[in-house]
């Protein structure tokens, strides 16, 4: 089918608008007044790159280890309550890294909550958790669920005949996993590693709270230092470049079909564990759930209850709640509307442009929010001053990074709209609009709604772009968490964080597991 001109045009407009931050960075890179070498000489670039990349590797390694172990144990072994354990292990997905890191920083500060709780044992001071170790722990705990979700769905679909053949040949169980199962899960493992890696290099909240110098932390520090010139552009551009490489590898290669493994799924009989092994397995699950879920939630609850009991002013966070909701609602509605022409083009009209569009839109998902925020900050000041510091500019900036979620939701439901339905409708003499209203829309609105809801929840948690671009006097819960925490007011910070989590946790969980499993 030939792509209608209007559709093509609207897609080109959307694509150009949404790629603006990237174009702007490229343009700035070519117009630097100083040489590239001078950045590498005067601004500790190697150190920051080294820190960022080493964090990438250690977190990917630990997340894959934990996530894969959870998947294998729960899917291939006889474990009681495996469904509940699976859910509990995946739930940390909903905790934004800055909230997770905040609970760790405040609980394990040298004389923090942990020391107060265990003071009866004679502990009076500990070395606080921060820096490399702190960031590593925090990022691992809040990213392994991605690996868990992706790998376990692949594992469920894995044809188990090879495994059984190996077993019948007398291969030891451990060897079966290292030489049969894991190699066959290579694609989902790589796919989820890159997803985790993207998260790591873009993360701003956790590394800032942990005081670990990565590129994102440098960008924000330069912003605070008032050097809004070449260095901040240089680092933002560098970060976008890194992220695009990673997401092109992730989305571009055939790794993207990773979660689907070929072959007919045959789930082998679950293996019984010896009682000694059972003990270790349960210990493992308890440890993971304790540190990734129980600890952050209890710290937040503790601060909340303490805050309420000493009569902290609740009204202070009200503005943030209103701000979060209004921004999220507007962004999600716009995301659904804007995603429509994209979804229609991609799924109804097979074309080369559509393929490129799909890849580009999906790779926007990996763009580091902070760098996009910096780019929009410059673009609005230098090119579109009339929307500078406006709600509109903030929403555009959210849309750039969250649109892929709406496109994903729409795309999934569009697959149900067969071309034959449309043909049937038009052969019955219905107009295009009527066909859309009577045939297409009823089939896709659920998917659109799910995509929109995901955008809503992501927007609510967004931090760095909001910090840079919010209109004067506009607050969100995420900004409240951040600014209270940076003043050392952990009680108030935890208060906003708790509300944010309470509102968004369950729907985020349901929606994102749906999305990742697809």
């Amino acid at each position, binding site marked *: 089918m030939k792509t209608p001109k209007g559709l093509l045009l609207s897609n080109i407009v959307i694509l150009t608008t949404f790629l603006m931050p990237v174009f702007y960075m490229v343009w700035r890179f070519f117009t630097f007044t100083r040489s590239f070498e001078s950045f590498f000489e005067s601004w500790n670039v190697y150190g920051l790159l080294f820190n960022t990349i080493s964090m990438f590797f250690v977190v990917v390694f630990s997340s894959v280890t934990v996530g894969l172990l959870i998947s294998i144990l729960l899917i291939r072994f006889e474990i009681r309550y495996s469904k509940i354990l699976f859910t509990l292990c995946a739930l940390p997905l909903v905790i934004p890294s800055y909230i997770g890191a905040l609970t760790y920083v405040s609980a394990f500060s040298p004389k923090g909550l942990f020391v107060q709780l265990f003071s009866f044992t004679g502990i009076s001071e500990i070395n606080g958790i921060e820096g490399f170790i702190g960031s590593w722990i925090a990022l691992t705990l809040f990213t392994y669920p991605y690996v868990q979700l992706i790998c376990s769905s692949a594992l469920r679909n894995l044809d188990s005949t090879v495994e059984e053949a190996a077993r019948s040949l007398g291969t030891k169980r451990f060897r079966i996993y290292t030489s049969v199962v894991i190699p066959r899960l290579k694609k989902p493992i790589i796919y989820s590693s890159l997803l985790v890696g993207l998260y790591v290099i873009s993360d701003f909240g956790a590394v800032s709270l942990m005081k670990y110098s990565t590129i994102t932390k440098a960008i924000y520090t*330069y912003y605070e230092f008032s050097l*809004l010139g070449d260095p901040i552009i240089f680092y933002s551009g560098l970060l976008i470049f890194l992220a695009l490489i990673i997401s092109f590898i992730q989305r571009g290669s055939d790794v993207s079909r990773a979660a689907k493994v070929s072959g007919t799924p045959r789930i082998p009989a679950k293996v019984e564990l010896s009682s000694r092994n059972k003990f270790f397995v349960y210990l493992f699950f308890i440890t993971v759930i304790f540190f990734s879920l129980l600890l952050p939630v209890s710290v937040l609850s503790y601060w909340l209850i303490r805050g309420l009991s000493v009569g902290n002013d609740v009204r202070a966070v009200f503005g943030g709640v209103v701000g979060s909701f209004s921004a999220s609602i507007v962004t999600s509605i716009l995301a659904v509307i804007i995603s429509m022409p994209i979804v229609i083009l991609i799924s109804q009209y097979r074309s080369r442009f559509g393929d490129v569009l799909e890849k580009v839109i999906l790779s926007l998902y990996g763009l580091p929010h902070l760098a996009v925020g910096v780019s929009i900050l410059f673009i609005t000041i230098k090119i579109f001053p009339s929307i500078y510091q406006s709600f509109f500019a903030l929403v555009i900036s959210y849309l750039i990074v969250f649109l892929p979620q709406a496109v994903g939701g729409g795309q999934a439901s569009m697959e149900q709209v067969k071309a034959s339905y449309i043909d049937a409708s038009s052969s019955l003499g219905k107009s295009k609009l009527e066909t859309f209203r009577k045939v297409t829309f009823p089939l896709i609105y659920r998917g659109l709604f799910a995509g929109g809801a995901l955008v809503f929840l992501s927007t609510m948690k967004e931090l760095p772009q909001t910090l840079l671009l919010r209109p004067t006097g506009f607050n969100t819960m995420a900004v409240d968490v951040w600014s209270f925490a940076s003043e050392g007011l952990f009680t108030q910070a935890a208060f906003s964080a708790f509300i944010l989590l309470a509102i968004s946790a369950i729907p985020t969980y349901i929606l994102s597991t749906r999305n990742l499993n697809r």
Partner: protein
Amino acid sequence: MNKKSIALISVLLMLFAACAGEAGPQGEQGEQGAQGPAGEVSDAQVAAAVEAALAEPETEVGGTLVIYSGRKESLVADVIAAFAAETGVTVEVRYAKSAALAGTLALEGAISPADVFLSQDPVSLGVVAKEGLFDVLPEDILDNVPAWAVDQRGYWVGTSGRSRSLVIDTRDVTESELPGDIYGLNDEKFRGRLGLAPSNSSFIAMIACMIEQDGEEKVAEWLSGINSLDYGEYPKNSPQVAAADAGELDIGMINHYYTLRVLAENGDSPVKNVYLDGGCGAMVMPAGAGILSSSQNKPAALAFIEYLHSTSAQEHFTNTVFEFPLVPGITPNALLPDINSLNSPTDLNWSALAIWQEKAVELIAGAGF
């Protein structure tokens, strides 16, 4: 007196002035009005009008005022709210770090939505002045405060004073082990005991002062020395005082008033301010404000800066924030040391420090903070 009645009276006054046929300078309209024919209004109304006109020379103040505040919300929100209530001006405030706002203003240039920049340090103000974005303030506003707290070219004016100081945890630190100047902190005996907030605007101002006074090389050496001493990094000054109070930090490099706030709440707190004997570590600097040339509401901006010099604002700064009041005749809070006993460098030129700001940041970043 609300905004409407002020507006009404000022219209009446202008009518009187027109009747009298002598349109004098704004500030004198009130008196002229009082001398004019008062047949249609009662004496009490005239008296009220005179009072209002004298208290508020800018009678047509109104509209919206956008303030970029580098001073924390908890320190200035009350003053701003009182100004808004008294004048009827709608005030919008953007809070961020002073240095970040200075950079934002420099980037925004003429399109800035801001009317007033309220900064916690003179260097950030100097950065904006250097870009040529401030209007020169009227003489009478500049004369409200001592000459040391005013930009030499009149682009901004001080609103309160603060001193750099060290906060110590007296349980772990004795004053005798502390050096006389900031360079003495670069010493093995302070390993793991120092705290600082490298992105804090006042800290950057101190570094700029050190570059100006002692040269780049010495400062770079000091910074990398401190960086190798296992320092504690804090996002701001106040958490350093909290950490010292909790026994987590021995010595923090801060501005003096955070410690006094803690002491005012809890007299038994083990924290104490130590003011160094000289050099930039003992610098006394003004927090201040300037009006952006691009401002769309200069009357309100001017009224706001005047309000910051009013007795109630100055008393708020000294009694609630524990800063040095700058307007003569205001009694400093009893917790404050005598400002004349501090050993700040006396030959500081604020606009010269602003030139070093970028270098200061570069050195701080380059040293690995």
